[in-house]
């Protein structure tokens, strides 16, 4: 085929431009470390990456939610175990004085002690986490337990509601991390038993004191059950946390597989393109020297 002189140069030019553009592409990959730097580079992988990114963002958020959950549960745990301890102390007092022959002094001291325990129990019920009452149901900004005088008798009232606090730990998956004070304390008779015990000591009513000791035993059992439940939820939360941590690593791997350049491959490719470019330059230099004039005198 006849070849026009301009075709030579055109071919050289086009060849060099193509090589240069290939070189730029692979150089961009190597220097950015990313397989795609714009949607058109690899639309399908990009869509997958975006999907994984969303998943990662969610899972990281769930993991953060679990931290909140952990705080709630450990605060609950401390409060409930202390309350249980407190019930035990009250029971011991009741058992010590419930069988008669105590001086008035001792009885007065016992009444004061029980009264003190009651105040402590109220303060446990009013446990706060970052300024929020955790045993108040949804009424987190109101102290759930307070004392009022009902019929001349000092009584503890519950101001909260019966809702539990839940956090999001997965898609459509919520976990209760805060039980309301009604379930935890009121239903376990902690306050009623302490109030009654205090009243009975004041009245020197020995049978009632012994009865309250029994009730307090029930309270301890009930609080123990609550504590076990909190423990179970803490375990669940920890399992979940471990699972999410694995997930996060997994998703990050997936993203990195799609997104990050395999340097071994890329460098090899870069070298190939470099060689190709050099060859093209060399051939350009050689071809442009070919000329009939060189051989004419």
């Amino acid at each position, binding site marked *: 085929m006849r070849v026009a002189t301009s075709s030579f140069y055109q071919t050289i030019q086009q060849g060099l431009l193509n090589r240069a553009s290939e070189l730029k592409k692979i150089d961009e990959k190597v220097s950015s470390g990313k397989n795609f730097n714009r*949607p058109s580079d690899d639309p399908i992988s990009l869509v997958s990456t975006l999907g994984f990114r969303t998943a990662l963002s969610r899972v990281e958020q769930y993991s953060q939610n679990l931290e909140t959950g952990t705080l709630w549960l450990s605060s609950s745990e401390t409060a409930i175990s202390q309350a249980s301890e407190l019930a035990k102390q009250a029971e011991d007092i009741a058992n010590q004085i419930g069988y008669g022959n105590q001086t008035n002094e001792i009885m007065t001291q016992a009444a004061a002690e029980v009264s003190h325990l009651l105040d402590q129990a109220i303060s446990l019920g009013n446990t706060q986490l970052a300024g929020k009452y955790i045993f108040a149901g*949804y009424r987190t900004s109101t102290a759930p337990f307070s004392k009022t005088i009902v019929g001349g008798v000092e009584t503890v009232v519950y101001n909260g509601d019966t809702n539990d606090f839940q956090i999001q730990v997965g898609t459509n998956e919520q976990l209760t991390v805060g039980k309301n004070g009604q379930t935890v304390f009121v239903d376990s008779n902690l306050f009623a038993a302490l109030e009654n015990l205090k009243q009975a000591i004041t009245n020197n009513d020995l049978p009632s004191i012994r009865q309250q000791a029994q009730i307090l035993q029930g309270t301890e059992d009930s609080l123990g059950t609550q504590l076990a439940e909190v423990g179970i939820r803490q375990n669940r939360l920890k399992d979940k946390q471990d699972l999410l941590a694995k997930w996060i690593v997994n998703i990050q791997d997936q993203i990195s597989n799609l997104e990050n350049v395999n340097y071994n491959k890329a460098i090899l490719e870069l070298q190939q393109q470099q060689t190709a470019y050099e060859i093209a330059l060399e051939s350009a230099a050689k071809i442009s020297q070919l000329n009939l004039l060189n051989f004419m005198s």
Partner: protein
Amino acid sequence: MSGVSFLLNIARTALLAQQKGIDVTGHNIANVNTPGFTRQKLILESVEETPIARLKLGYGVNADSVVRYFDTFTTQSINQKTSSLSEYEAKKSVLDYVQTLFNDGAGNGLNEATNEFWNAWQDLSNNPSGIPERTALLQKAQNMCQAFQMIRNNLTQTKDQMNFNLKSGMEEINTLNEQIAKINQRIIEAEANGTTANDLRDQRDNFVEELSQLTDITYLEKANGSLTVTTKAGIALVDGNLFWTLSQQGDHIYWNNSQNDISDQLTGGKMGGWLDLRDNILPQYIANLDELAGTMIDQVNDLHYNGYTLDGATNKYFFNHLNFASDVAYGTWSGTSIASSGGVYANTAPAGTFQFTVTSAGTGKVGTDTITLGWTGPGGTSGTMTFDSSYVPGTLVDVSQGLQISLGNGTVVNGDTFAIDVSPGASCPDYSGAARDIALSSDVDGLPRNIAASTSSNPQDTGNNQNALAIQALSDEQVSTKKWTYQNRGGIQSSTNQFGTMDEYYNVLVGDIGMVTDEAVQNQNFYETMINQLNDLRDSVSGVNLEEEMINMMKYQYAFMAASKLVNASDQMLQALMQMQ
């Protein structure tokens, strides 16, 4: 006839002819780098004398004409492919910009903003009374709104930019049309005596190629050498020395100033590319982005409106509540005889049912008499509306709150009633503009306490996070979102309902843009390679090869030198004759 002077004459023709040969060669060498130049060739023919008896002697050589090596077929193919190449080049350069708007690869696009928005709702659910969490949520929501608006506005600007491109393209077409017509005239004149106007034709071919970069054209050479050019769809551009111009008004392109839009008859080339972008590709993305924003607004607002703020207030919108006109009739229409009526409800109906009742307060014929209708609407609203004699039956008339009704042909009797139940459920809202208008509502903007995280009206329930949990769950909810496909420069707009999360919808949108851009790049490469090959093919016929020209030069040079020797020889012969005594 023969003689020494005869030889001298032959030498004369040879000298002249070889010199012309060198001239043509020189012209070729001079134009080796001229774009569109077609190499030329001197046609030589020997001159025969009328034979006398059996003696035939030639008279020498005649330089008959200069022709150009021109490959009509390849050139036509190149022009066609040039149109396609220019079309994809135009698309690619615009899409390259558009795809940077959706460049979520770097992790800072709308995808990221949306993820953060949903996460902020979860943060709020962890601490529903927290003002920092509420403020952060508003901030994240604001970021997301801005991301939507940024993409939407840039798409619209790019779309509007197309009209400027089209205008400059059109001006170029007009200039080229004029130039081709002028050259046509000069060729007709130059070739009237039978010669070929080689260099004028080269110029014209260049203009034709430039024209085909702008739009798909077809052309035909007439017997007188002039070229008739039309667009592929048949719009006349040049005929002989006549040419026609295009003009632009708004989105319309007119031919020869007739008020008739011919943009659908401009295909291929940059013009075709820009028109496709303006009327098809970009509006489709805008429509889909709007659907996503509209779905987001409606879904979040629906839940938020029914939730309760930190202070126990309700019926607050989170996003600015947009009145999305419904693109279907909405609600049920029933009643006694008011001339068969109908209408549309053009707002998003609030939760619950509400009803309009329309009662006529007089008797009369629709479109002839003046008819007054009274209406009562939700919340004790009421009013009257009048249809006078100029009313055209069937025309929609505004009532209130987005309700429009029409009366059919017929007669209205005093006391006729007509009830319209507007109930949510069958809605198919038109979300166009949503991505542009998405913003925080005035209910919550700057008022973090007004975020409705709770499902309880009791302001003491500060720990109620149920509404926040419900709203964050939207991120994983499969919702039905309309996905538009535009074809035929927006002439055909069809939509299908896509089920999936809002994130997925957006991700697919990004993928679409990547694929369309990639397609433009691939097509551009394809046509570029093809044109390169065709150019080589054309140049193998039409292009100048310097070596060849140099050989030709030597060939003519030696022939010229030989002819000079002829003069020398005849001179000596004449001298010999003269010296005879």
